[in-house]
């Protein structure tokens, strides 16, 4: 879309004053972003690499992190959780998105409403509900007891607790992103494939999935960025040790009063997510019509 000019008066002077006004109006939010996003990231990298007490430039903090079994366990848990959640999310949300795209029944609206609903449930309420259902003496235990089945081991305070909570929380956005991507798959393309004899599975594999690659990668990036450093759900539902990077950073910062370690962990998290972050920004830039 083109930018409309204001009233058609002497062009050159008007352009200049427009430019000045424009910059002025965007000044505040931009400064905020620079101060509270760009600067902290630079500062984090610098302060963990340049420590005056230890003689200037040093990778001491990172060496510590990567040699400390506790830290490495936490990192490992985080990587595992991220991978498992991403896999489950895609396996769960892709069929839902496909169903929503190609259904003609009335249930489609209901399913869509349900899929979007968790977006309106704050994470903290979700955590609480999780404990009430899957926790010790929770609803599941009650129901199993009522039909005289043995209790299952509760996933509460195990890595699977975090996984279940994180999957639940991320269903809506994943479904939305996938559904939006599926919107780009035209009916005509599918019809043409069926016309030459492809069955539904072949259509899915050869026509729909290739067109969805970009969307799948976007959904993946978004999920990874969200999960890698998530805090609330792992903190409440996950184990105390090993813990995910989020709770680990928080503990280092507040309870252990060790901001340097916390920032080191943050930079490690940045590094692991860098590729996904870049891809995400590039994808958004490419998909938006030029503002």
């Amino acid at each position, binding site marked *: 879309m083109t930018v409309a000019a204001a*009233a*058609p*008066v002497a*062009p050159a002077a008007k352009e200049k004053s427009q430019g000045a006004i424009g910059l002025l109006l965007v000044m505040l939010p931009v400064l905020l972003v620079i101060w509270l996003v760009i600067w902290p990231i630079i500062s984090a990298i610098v302060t963990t690499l340049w420590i005056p007490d230890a003689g200037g430039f040093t990778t001491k903090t990172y060496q510590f992190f990567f040699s400390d079994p506790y830290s490495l366990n936490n990192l490992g848990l985080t990587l595992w959780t991220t991978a498992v959640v991403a896999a489950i999310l895609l396996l769960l949300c892709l069929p839902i998105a496909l169903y929503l795209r190609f259904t003609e029944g009335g249930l489609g609206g209901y399913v869509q409403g349900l899929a979007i609903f968790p977006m309106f449930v704050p994470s903290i309420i979700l955590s609480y509900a999780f404990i009430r259902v899957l926790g010790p003496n929770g609803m599941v235990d009650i129901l199993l007891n009522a039909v005289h089945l043995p209790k299952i081991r509760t996933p509460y305070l195990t890595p699977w607790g975090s996984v279940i909570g994180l999957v639940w929380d991320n269903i809506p956005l994943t479904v939305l992103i996938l559904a939006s991507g599926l919107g780009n798959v035209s009916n005509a393309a599918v019809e043409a494939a069926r016309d030459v004899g492809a069955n539904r599975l072949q259509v899915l594999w050869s026509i729909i999935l290739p067109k969805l690659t970009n969307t799948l990668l976007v959904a993946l990036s978004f999920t990874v960025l969200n999960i890698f450093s998530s805090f609330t759900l792992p903190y409440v539902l996950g184990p105390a040790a090993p813990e995910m990077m989020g709770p680990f950073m928080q503990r280092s910062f507040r309870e252990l009063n060790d901001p340097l370690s916390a920032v080191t962990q943050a930079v490690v998290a940045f590094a692991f997510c860098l590729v996904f972050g870049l891809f995400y920004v590039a994808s958004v830039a490419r998909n938006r019509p030029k503002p």
Partner: protein
Amino acid sequence: MATLELSDVTKQFGSTVAVDKVSLSVGDGELVCLLGPSGSGKSTVLRMIGGFATPTSGAVLIDGEDVTKVSPEKRPTGMVFQSHALWSHMSVFGNIAFGLKLRRLPKAEIAQKVEAVLELVGLGGLGKRQPNQLSGGQQQRVALARSLVLEPKILLLDEPFASLDQHLRERLREEVRDIQQRVGITTLFVTHGQDEALALADRIVVMRDGRVEQADPPDVVYRQPRTPFVAGFIGTMNLVDGEVRGGRITAGGMSVPAPIADGPATLAVRPEFLQLTRTDAADAPVAHRVIDYGTHLMVDIALPNGERLKAMAAPNDGFKAGMRLTLTPREIAIYRDGVVAHQAAIAADAAPAPVAAVHG
């Protein structure tokens, strides 16, 4: 009472010249159509009159006053946009009253004027509706009413019926013409449909590539097109390249008097003025296809050299595909170097010219 004058108006976008030294005079109460293909600059001219674009050079005068640099809200023009551009968050009444409210008229007067103009466009009593509750045709009428209620000096219409279906379009343009004549307002109408221009205009301005090719009343534009482009753009026209020698032009197997200098030229004949007679000559032009339109036949003729011409015939003339034909033009124009060099009607009793050797 309003006249419009465009004086050498030019509009450049970067290195593209959208409008190239266009001059035009529109008299009071006249309805002028700007007609041309996409990219001919007609909408740009309209927007410059309305104030939504500033000419790079040249002047726009309304009633003798130079309004070239005046902003749209201060100009005495009213524009009806192609997409009607009604304000969806206001009712029909609100849309029409908005301009009046800006002029600080008392409420009672506003209500009276709005009702009056709604009656004028045939939507009396629909003031309370929302724009999205109206049909396409009704929406355009509201857009028209919105402009008319302010009694502008010049009414500008930018392809207002482009998004409507054929029947509705024809009906609405009759109504717009009626209203325009009743109110007596000077109007400029942009369209790319030549039947619309022929039906509505007092004068048609044919534009191409930012320039005016011809500005004349419809019958003149149709009968005496000044350039091959105008000839081909309005109605159907057969254009055949040929050669003038010794006061006659020979083209496409036809030969007619041409009192101009020797040299190459283009012969132009409308299908309804190309008379057909059956012949047995083996190398004569042949009827390739005959389409029956009910009111007339359209005969698609293949010349021996491969060129195609179209000729109109009466429904009962009995022409069929495969017949050999002699072609006799009755009204012709000859073009040379992009301008008309000669126009004539050929007497009905003149003998058909012999089939001359066709040049390659």
